């Protein structure tokens, strides 16, 4: 970077944005997961302001880390602190909401709960439940992550209709639109979804909403063996009805401290349809165990628990295989526990049975001599085992020393070349971080 000191950088940014929209020094630390201090944290209030900051950053060669409201930051997520953190959390306005169209456009810093409070009075919702809490729309688009409802509704790549964003070199652009079907030009929306800020800083998001269902039921099976539950989950996903979510997850049992695995199935829609689907599910899963319908408050608590599984965890993994093979997926996760020897007692998992994704969260890793090397070895073995089965392992979160030992997952040489080409189109100076984050 060409600015000699970090305070110089902050004052340069203060020349672009109003003073109160720029932090530096210790105030900036909360915006970095890895510890350390960024040169400045900037909170643009508009696409135009973000564009001005990025134009300058690109000219100066400042490294920039795009973030939303900062809820997805965690220790160990980054290496060297960036020169500048660019946060969308100051951009929280509704741009356009016409309930009759079932679409909403909001600035990228608006959080999912804020969006819910906007659309719920209109009997609408965003059928989307990614892990975590209070994520911003920009961040969910940038990470592309989804939760249990992804089985029926897809993820951000299916729910985001349009974006407004700023390239690494400060060019503002729109992609997609606010209509459900749109094939005018190449699909820059899907390119940006899941690109983790490596291509552009997202400033506005247009999402497709749904009408709130008449009824929303959650059925739970517990007390059965793991094999029975896996069998039940696979069967629930193989029926002619598609449940809104089929989740196998480990939950804490307050007394005794041990966890238990339960199967939760969510069905929603018109009352009669839901009743009929429930009947099909009960009959088809009878050999695995009994499904009990939860009261609404219990159901809310259950799905909240699933969403918050990763909270505070030091190590978070995402394992994926085709959904019919979730039994194998759980087996592989258990192998990791057993080689880890005892540390797994408090590790928890949740499996999105409909999409074949297992999330694994370990609250605390035992740090002793050589721990990071041992863990790196275990994870590489797991990665190899999954890759042999045509699956993948993503390390979502890991302590810095372990992350440093892990090789990033590499694309094939051709894909790697395509991706660096795409990166150069959107961020010619290569200042935007993101990617393996």
């Amino acid at each position: 970077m060409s600015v000699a000191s970090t305070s110089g950088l902050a004052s340069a940014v203060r020349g672009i944005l109003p003073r109160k929209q720029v932090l530096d020094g210790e105030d900036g630390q909360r915006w970095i997961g890895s510890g350390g201090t960024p040169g400045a944290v900037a909170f643009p209030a508009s696409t135009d302001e973000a564009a001005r900051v990025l134009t300058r950053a690109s000219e100066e060669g400042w490294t920039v880390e795009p973030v939303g409201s900062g809820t997805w930051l965690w220790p160990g997520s980054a290496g060297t602190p960036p020169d500048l953190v660019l946060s969308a959390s100051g951009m929280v306005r509704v741009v356009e909401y016409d309930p009759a169209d079932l679409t909403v456009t909001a600035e990228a810093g608006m959080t999912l709960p804020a969006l819910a409070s906007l659309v719920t009075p209109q009997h609408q919702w965003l059928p989307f439940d990614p892990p975590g809490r209070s994520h911003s729309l920009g961040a969910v688009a940038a990470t592309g992550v989804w939760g249990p409802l992804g089985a029926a509704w897809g993820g951000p790549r299916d729910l985001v209709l349009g974006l407004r964003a700023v390239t690494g070199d400060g060019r503002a652009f729109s992609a997609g639109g606010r209509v459900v079907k749109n094939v005018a030009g190449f699909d820059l929306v899907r390119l940006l979804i899941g690109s983790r800020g490596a291509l552009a800083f997202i400033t506005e998001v247009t999402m497709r909403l749904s009408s709130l269902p008449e009824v929303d039921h959650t059925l739970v099976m517990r007390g059965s063996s793991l094999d029975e539950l896996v069998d039940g989950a696979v069967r629930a996903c193989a029926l002619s009805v598609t449940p809104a979510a089929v989740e196998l997850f480990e939950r804490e049992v307050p007394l005794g401290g041990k966890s238990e695995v339960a199967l939760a199935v969510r069905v929603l829609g018109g009352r009669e349809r839901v009743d009929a689907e429930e009947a099909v599910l009960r009959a088809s899963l009878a050999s695995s165990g009994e499904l009990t319908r939860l009261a609404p408050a219990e159901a809310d608590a259950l799905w909240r628990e699933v969403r918050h599984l990763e909270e505070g965890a030091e190590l978070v993994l995402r394992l994926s295989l085709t959904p019919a093979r979730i039994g194998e997926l759980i087996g592989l996760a258990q192998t990791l526990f057993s080689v880890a020897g005892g540390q797994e007692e408090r590790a928890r998992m949740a499996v999105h049975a409909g999409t074949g994704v297992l999330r694994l969260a370990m609250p605390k890793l035992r740090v002793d001599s050589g721990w990071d090397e041992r863990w790196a070895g275990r994870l590489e073995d797991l990665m190899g085992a999954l890759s042999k089965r045509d699956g993948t392992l993503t390390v979502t979160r890991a302590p810095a020393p372990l992350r440093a030992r892990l090789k990033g997952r590499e694309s094939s040489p051709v894909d790697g070349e395509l991706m660096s080409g795409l990166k150069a189109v959107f961020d010619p100076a290569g200042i935007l971080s993101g990617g393996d984050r």
Partner: protein
Amino acid sequence: MLKAAVPEPLPRALTDELVELVGEDGVITDPSRLLVYESDALTAYRYLPRAIVFPATTEQAAGVLSALTSHGVAFVPRGAGTGLSGGALAVDGSVLVGTARMDRILELDPVGRLARVQAGVVNADLTAAARPHGLHYAPDPSSQSACTLGGNVAENAGGPHCLKYGVTARWVTGLTLVLPDGRVTELGGWGKEPPGFDLVGVVVGSEGCFGLVTEIEVRLLPTPAAVRTLLAIFEDVERAVAAVTDIIGSGLLPAALEIIDGETIWAVEASVFAAGIPVDAGAALVIEFDGTDAGLDSEAQRAEDYCLAAGARDVRRAGDDAEREALWKGRKKAFGAMGRIAPDLLVQDATVPRSKLPAVLHRIIEIGHEHGLRLANTFHAGDGNLHPKILFDRRDPEQVARVERASEEIMRVCVAAGGTITGEHGVGLDKRDYMTLVCSPVELDLMAGVKAVFDPRGLCNPGKVLPPPPETRG
């Protein structure tokens, strides 16, 4: 409209190389045999290709693309040629690379609900193969009995049932892509979360401009246990649209909501596809619900109530599969039935926010009147996706000019209403000059940049999707 002269023959060495790769019968260079490939379903544009080559495998396709590229010859991927945007035309002496021989279903996994097919497999054939397993492939464009999955991927095709199930991009999980230089890459895959950017996502809908997709992995869905199909008859389109808005706003999620207007009803009923709709109706709304049998009757009843409240003069339910088939045939064959009314047909494809449908439709009808053109409307009302059909005779250049003006005005109206110039047919050659209505120069630059990453020499489907740079525009 546009018609090019007979292009130059291919260099002998290249023809020999192509024959070596795919066999004598896999290469057509005789202009009289190439005539059938001079246009797609948008017959207004005609370009005679220099040749068409039919690889049967990914390996052959890689050889073909590599040979073409090393000779600096531009090429255009082509499926069944049912596209409606001039996307598969061999402009400027390009060679077509056809997928007709890549017509094998490579794998159908009923347990995993997954299929891997070659790009030339016909959409309806996949569903036919999946049916014995109680499964189907969701996107169902009206041309599904002819169009290929490769073409569907290129256009990110939709269809009536995409209201509930979503368009092609939702169901494609993996692709084998041959890059223009002949290198092959496997993208995505169900059960994988590959690192980096969503390359499958950006290749779907790229209109054959990024290379040739040779294999496609798609998810299959269970065939619904039961279906209810309703037909509501209205005096005018506005009332039909009001019913659609009420149905969707109520939280009901029909599998399809399709409107055909009076002009279309007239054409359909006078054709072999007659569905028994009163010819004096102003609009007919087809509503379909699918799922478990038990809930369907009450949903159908609620939809019927909304239709009656919105002013429907009659609501019928298809009593059996035969009636249902007839009803859908009327909707899906509307395009063909129009042939009775006029020799040529231009199908527009624009999408507007659903709440803007009545105003936009009203304006579209006015535009037809202003230009003295007959216009019929069929549309995916639930998605706000309009297909105004302009009837004309292309032998009359003055009429053709009016069609072009009306067509452009329709696009402008849709864009002004917050919509876009194409919902599912693609930009192709037909709409590339209108891309500036929906994209800023920065956006067009970014798209051109993305294309150049896949196709740095600009040999793959040149001249499509993006308008020529301003300095080269005539």
